[in-house]
């Protein structure tokens, strides 16, 4: 391990003291942040040659995973196995009724690590619980599920915690959709795996009613995910498609808009700038993965791996991109085009975006990553949603807020040009006006058209709702206001949401 200079140590000690004495962090948030600060003093990774250059310029970012990762970033446990065999380490038998099933899950969730120390995937709740729910009266099942959901919201204080529903209709799903409307809570995040050939229209419309009330469940293009990942996938964290019984070791991202600023024009970008950056980023990811797999002892000692709830065979890693719009717009100007020829409004600009994504995709498909067994020893591309400190960089491949096309159909077809690059997730969010709220089938028609055109993952939300989708995760508008007023709030994602509201104008998307 390399020595540290005293300035770094002193800076960290100051940040530790700031954390301890903070008036806006809860106790649990302080403990979590302190562990991150401790790991920030580590220097155990063999970093690629140019990484620090990209890091200092804010071009490559490891998204707070720390200097010595002690667990995979995202874990997607096999909950079917838990219900089939129980868990020896946690002394849990296979559940026999709904009470036992929910108790088993609540215990298990508290032992599923992630980058935030909270579980980012809590199962396909409807298929998982349906056999138990069907043995109960509707009222009894609803009461138990209500307590379960409240328990989640108050103890998993992190809106990256993600539940899945669908694609089939179910009584459990129906109850959860009703409860979500009633509870108005940010946790858990939720997706419905939607397949127009399988999901009945009336059930999808019920999900849309809930989505318009609480910005969830988002709609995931199930046939698209299945074609890439197979039937055994889950949507975790923001909208990450990952294999069940596995997950993602790491997520590193490149801010393409900032990268473009280091190029003289698009020729320079393709010949010199982009190849070095993505090679550096892939090497960084491989080094992080190597530490987790070979040095951290996680897979040798953690009960999730020992008992088969996760297996290295199902793990991958996420190669994230941010700011394609700003990248394209910068290069277009440098190539002599005008402001009118910009991303989302010009075919030339969009084609440049496609060429950039094709280049990254081609690199990824030839780059060998030893331990990514879940994805053919390659990374999976990911359209990252941005973080609270991003400014001037649009999430993933989105068109910048305030520059949206006039027609929603043009906006969706633009998204469809790019969503296919990202098996490990990307998505878009569209606020709708009040006339749409009374007509869920209006939204369903749009979703059907969008998915048939190639969109991957969509949220339509009421621009006046309290629970809002910030970029991929959820927050309550009322909690943002509380935090902005200087009060501590329960969920750490509220901190991210407030930053995004101020830096990325997420409350100002064009209503449709």
């Amino acid at each position: 391990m390399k020595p540290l200079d005293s300035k770094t140590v002193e800076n960290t000690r100051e940040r530790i003291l700031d954390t301890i004495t903070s008036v806006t962090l809860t106790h649990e948030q302080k403990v979590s942040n302190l562990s991150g600060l401790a790991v920030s003093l580590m220097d155990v990774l063999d970093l690629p040659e140019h990484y620090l250059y990209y890091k200092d310029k804010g071009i490559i970012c490891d998204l707070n995973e720390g200097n010595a990762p002690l667990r995979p970033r995202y874990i997607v446990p096999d909950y079917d196995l838990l219900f089939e065999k129980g868990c020896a380490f946690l002394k849990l038998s296979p559940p026999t009724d709904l009470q036992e099933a929910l108790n088993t899950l609540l215990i298990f969730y508290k032992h599923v690590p992630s980058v935030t120390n909270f579980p980012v995937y809590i199962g396909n709740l409807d298929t998982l619980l349906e056999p138990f729910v069907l043995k109960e009266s509707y009222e009894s099942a609803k009461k138990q599920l209500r307590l379960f959901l409240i328990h989640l919201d108050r103890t998993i204080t992190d809106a990256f915690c993600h539940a899945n529903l669908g694609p089939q209709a179910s009584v459990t799903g129906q109850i959860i959709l009703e409860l979500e409307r009633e509870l108005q809570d940010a946790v858990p995040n939720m997706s419905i795996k939607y397949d127009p050939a399988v999901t009945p229209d009336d059930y999808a419309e019920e999900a849309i009613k809930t989505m318009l009330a609480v910005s969830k469940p988002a709609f995931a293009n199930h046939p698209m995910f299945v074609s890439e990942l197979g039937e055994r996938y889950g949507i975790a964290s923001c909208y990450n498609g990952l294999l069940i019984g596995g997950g993602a070791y790491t997520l590193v991202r490149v801010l393409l808009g900032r990268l473009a600023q280091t190029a003289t024009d698009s020729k320079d970008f393709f010949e010199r700038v982009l190849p070095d950056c993505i090679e550096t980023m892939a090497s960084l990811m491989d080094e992080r993965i190597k530490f987790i797999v070979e040095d951290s002892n996680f897979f040798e000692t953690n009960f999730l791996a020992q008992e088969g709830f996760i297996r290295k065979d199902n793990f991958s890693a996420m190669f994230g991109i941010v700011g394609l719009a700003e990248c394209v717009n910068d290069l277009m100007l440098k190539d002599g085009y005008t402001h009118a020829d910009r991303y989302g409004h010009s075919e030339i600009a969009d084609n440049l975006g496609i060429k950039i994504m094709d280049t990254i995709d081609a690199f990824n498909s030839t780059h060998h990553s030893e331990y990514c067994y879940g994805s053919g020893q390659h990374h999976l591309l990911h359209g990252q949603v941005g973080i609270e400190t991003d400014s001037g960089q649009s999430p993933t491949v989105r068109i910048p807020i305030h520059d949206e096309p006039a027609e929603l159909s043009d906006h969706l077809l633009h998204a469809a040009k790019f969503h296919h690059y990202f098996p490990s997730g990307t998505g878009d969010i569209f606020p709708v006006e009040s006339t749409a709220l009374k007509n869920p089938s209006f939204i369903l028609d749009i979703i059907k058209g969008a998915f048939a055109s190639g969109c991957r993952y969509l949220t339509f939300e009421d621009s006046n709702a309290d629970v809002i989708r910030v970029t991929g995760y959820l927050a309550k508008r009322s909690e943002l206001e509380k935090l902005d007023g200087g009060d501590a709030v329960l969920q750490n994602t509220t901190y991210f949401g407030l930053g995004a509201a101020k830096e990325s104008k997420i409350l100002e998307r064009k209503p449709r």
Partner: protein
Amino acid sequence: MPNTANVTKIIRFSAVDGPGNRAVIFLQGCNYNCSFCHNPETIAQRSETSRWMTCDEIFTEIGSGIKFVRGITVSGGECTLQRDMLIEIFTQARQLGLTTYIDSNGSYDFSKDQELLDLTDSVMLDVKCTDDSEHRRIAAFTNAIVLKNIDTLGSLDKLYEIRTVISPTLMDCEQTVGEAARRISIYPNTRYKLIKYRPNGVRMQYIRDLKTPTPALMSSLETLALENGAASVIIT
């Protein structure tokens, strides 16, 4: 030379003109002259802002929006005044797999036009007033054909909804809502939409005569419509 329609405007996505998401084509010109009309610029047969468009031009303008809608609605003005273009537009819509809806003031006798009925999936019909003399005062037109159309379309299961604009100073709202609800009570798939009068867009000379309804009035009319047999009632 291909035929052309006089088009006021085209909306690619609408949540309020029939089931699901629909593209809406507004045709210029109306044979009524209702005081409460909120888009009176569409009444004249000729307008500086309307455009003469062929059927192909109409669908070109809807463009990629077609992928996201389950159908089209042709509205107005009064679209049946351009009946031949309606036939052309609906023929092309059907070829594209789209459902075809008409938004009409009810003055056109649908029973005498089998070709149009065959090409039309459903109609949204204005029932402005059930009393004929009152209707003549409000719309400058008899309502005899409107009431006949309720049965023509209802019996074919092609009556998606009837709607009435509610203003307490316009007419005897209770009488119209009760009577209209009785007339659609035998058509379980027809809903009754009660529209609150709003002054937006209404011509200045009528504004002082028309009052917006209270929530209590809308609620009592909803109850009245349901009591008189309307299968469902929507208030907007």
